[in-house]
């Protein structure tokens, strides 16, 4: 089987990547500023809602229901989309999905397509696959365009170029668009408008993702801000939408929950500027050919795990990234995947589905388990619990290691009081290694521990020894 492109080929494990990222002071500055701003704004947008908790609970329950009835709901969606003139395709993995989309582009004789920002297409590496097949995909979301023109990788779910500041963006635009532009955000946005305008008016095929698909009506929903989405969803003759199989809601009414949860959680607005809803094909309005590509790519494997499957409730708001102390310091690229941050740390390894992959297995450790992500999650994904669950799986996959041997030895020592006391006495000798009450480097195998943290110096006398002397 081909490797799942949800992680980038050749990415180092999280601790290695994080170490490098932490030395990038520009990156840390950019991220601190951006995440700090959005955190405050989200808090304000949510506090305004007196029924926020009830909305979260409903969001969680609707998505749980979707996961429980996924097979029937998908068939229902397929029927409603087909009845309204759309064509539904199914893809087991990234490779199959990319081949379907490439085939559809070739059918339309398209060598250039415009794209609405979409996590699903980023996950399957669609742009690269299209390029290899002779079809150039133009990203039209501003942040995606910055990443594409900079030959860069995304670092955030909502704002893929969050790691870039205005002067870096100016430099990329001047170099790639060949225009003079200031570093004012308004001027940079104007440059993108001019650059993409003609593409929107002339390109025949568009590719989008989907925020939601309504099973009972066949309606597809895309939320956006700039209007690039509306351009792609309205002007071309053919529209291809690529969507993960879990992005369903059962009924039109269910959207009333998510249209309140998503904007406030992601952009901290009461409502995002534009939301488009379309159902199949509408004669005389918009694309007259509509294809919906449903992708599995590791989702059904994730569904089998009773603890891990809640990650499939995710609506890709990115609130958990913005509150995460680890994400804020390491940035998104350290996670080696299009899904960074806390949700990425639980979703990516499950989509990869192989804890023997050292990079994927390192992701559940990219957390201090502080729980801020769970608190802000609009569909109440208990990320810390899934992280510890996946850590256990990672340990199990490793089999017999120095750590597991040490743990077994510790269990033997703890089992008998006399052995424990002897070990304590021996351990207290380590204080001669300490400086200012801390030990920063132990000899092997202790070095495995001290490579990433300090150990407090053990006292000269253990509590048990002291007790026996004074009170015993």
């Amino acid at each position, binding site marked *: 089987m081909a490797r799942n492109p949800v992680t980038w080929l050749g990415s180092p494990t999280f601790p290695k990547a994080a170490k490098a990222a932490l030395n990038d002071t520009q990156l840390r500055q*950019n991220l601190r*500023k951006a995440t700090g*701003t959005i955190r405050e704004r989200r808090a304000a947008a949510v506090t305004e809602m007196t*029924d926020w908790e*009830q909305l979260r*609970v*409903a969001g969680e*329950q609707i998505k749980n*229901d979707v*996961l*429980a009835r*996924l*097979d029937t709901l998908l*068939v229902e969606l397929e029927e409603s989309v087909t009845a309204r003139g759309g064509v539904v395709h*199914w893809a*087991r993995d990234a490779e199959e999905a990319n081949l379907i989309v490439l085939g559809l582009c070739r059918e339309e004789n398209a060598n250039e397509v415009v794209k609405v920002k979409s996590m699903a297409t980023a996950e399957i590496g669609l742009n690269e696959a299209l390029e290899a097949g002779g079809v150039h995909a133009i990203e*039209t979301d*501003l942040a995606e365009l*910055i990443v594409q023109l900079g030959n860069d990788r995304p670092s955030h779910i909502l*704002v893929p*170029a969050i790691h870039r*500041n*205005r002067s870096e963006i100016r430099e990329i635009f001047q170099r790639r668009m060949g225009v003079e532009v200031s570093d004012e*955000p*308004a001027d940079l*946005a*104007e440059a*993108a*408008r001019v650059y993409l*305008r003609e593409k*929107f*008016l002339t390109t025949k095929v568009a590719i989008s993702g989907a925020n939601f698909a*309504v099973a009972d*009506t066949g309606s597809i929903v895309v939320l956006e*801000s*700039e*209007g*690039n989405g*509306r*351009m792609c969803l*309205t002007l071309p003759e053919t529209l291809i939408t690529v969507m993960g*199989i879990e992005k369903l809601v059962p009924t039109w009414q269910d959207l*009333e*929950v998510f*249209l*309140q949860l998503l904007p406030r959680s992601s952009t901290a607005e*009461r*409502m*995002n*500027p*534009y939301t*488009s809803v379309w*159902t*199949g094909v509408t004669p005389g*309005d*918009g694309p007259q050919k509509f294809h919906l590509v449903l992708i*599995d790519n590791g989702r*059904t494997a994730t*569904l*089998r795990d009773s603890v891990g499957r809640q990650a499939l409730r995710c609506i890709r708001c990115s609130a958990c990234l913005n509150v995460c102390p680890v994400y804020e310091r390491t940035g998104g690229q350290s996670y080696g995947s299009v899904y960074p941050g806390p949700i990425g740390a639980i979703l990516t390894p499950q989509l990869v589905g192989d804890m023997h992959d050292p990079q994927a297995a390192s992701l559940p450790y990219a957390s201090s388990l502080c729980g801020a992500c769970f608190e802000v999650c609009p569909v109440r994904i208990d990320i810390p619990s899934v992280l510890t669950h996946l850590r256990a799986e990672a340990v199990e996959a490793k089999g017999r290691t120095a750590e597991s041997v040490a743990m077994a030895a510790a269990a033997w020592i703890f089992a008998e009081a006399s052995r424990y006391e002897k070990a304590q006495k021996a351990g207290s000798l380590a204080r001669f290694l300490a400086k200012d009450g801390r030990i920063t480097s132990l000899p092997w195998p202790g070095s495995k521990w001290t490579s990433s943290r300090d150990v407090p110096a053990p006292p000269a006398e253990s509590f048990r020894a002291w007790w026996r002397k004074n009170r015993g």
Partner: protein
Amino acid sequence: MASAREEILARIRNAKVPAAQPVVRGYHREGPGGVELFAERVADYRAVVHVVSNVPEALTSLRGKRIVAPAGVPEEWLIEGVTWLREPLSIEELDQADGVLTGCAVAIADTGTIVLDGGEAQGRRALTLLPDYHVCVVRADQIAASVPEALQRLEPTRPLTFISGPSATSDIELSRVEGVHGPRTLEVLVVDQQ
């Protein structure tokens, strides 16, 4: 070999996910609503809002001379001194128009949103997308208090566009900039005839 469809459906069934609890909809379905709240929330997006009692009178301050008017726009809105562009219109004609004047299907007070459904006085979606200036007339009775109330009033299979302020981006350092690809100016006329 089984088709991708059959295989994915079989994998889902094999996952044996237990039935979920019934959904408890304990959130608010209603809200205070009203013209005043709607106007206030639209203005928060830095759209231009006027509460008016007479549409033709208010339209005399329209910016631009060549304005698109979709089918179903009331005759009285088509005031003199403006070149009204009527369908059929090409992409180029729309791109070169100064603006577009429409009604709406529903509005939402709580979020300051207007919703177009391609019906009467709204036209196909490209009409409100390509011109850089969109003037939308909202009647007081079209304003739903909340998102749940608005969705209930809409027909989901029509092509819908929810508009909350002018086109914007926060992609550069998360600072909001109005005006990217969609209309850079949104003007909302709320008709309150009391």
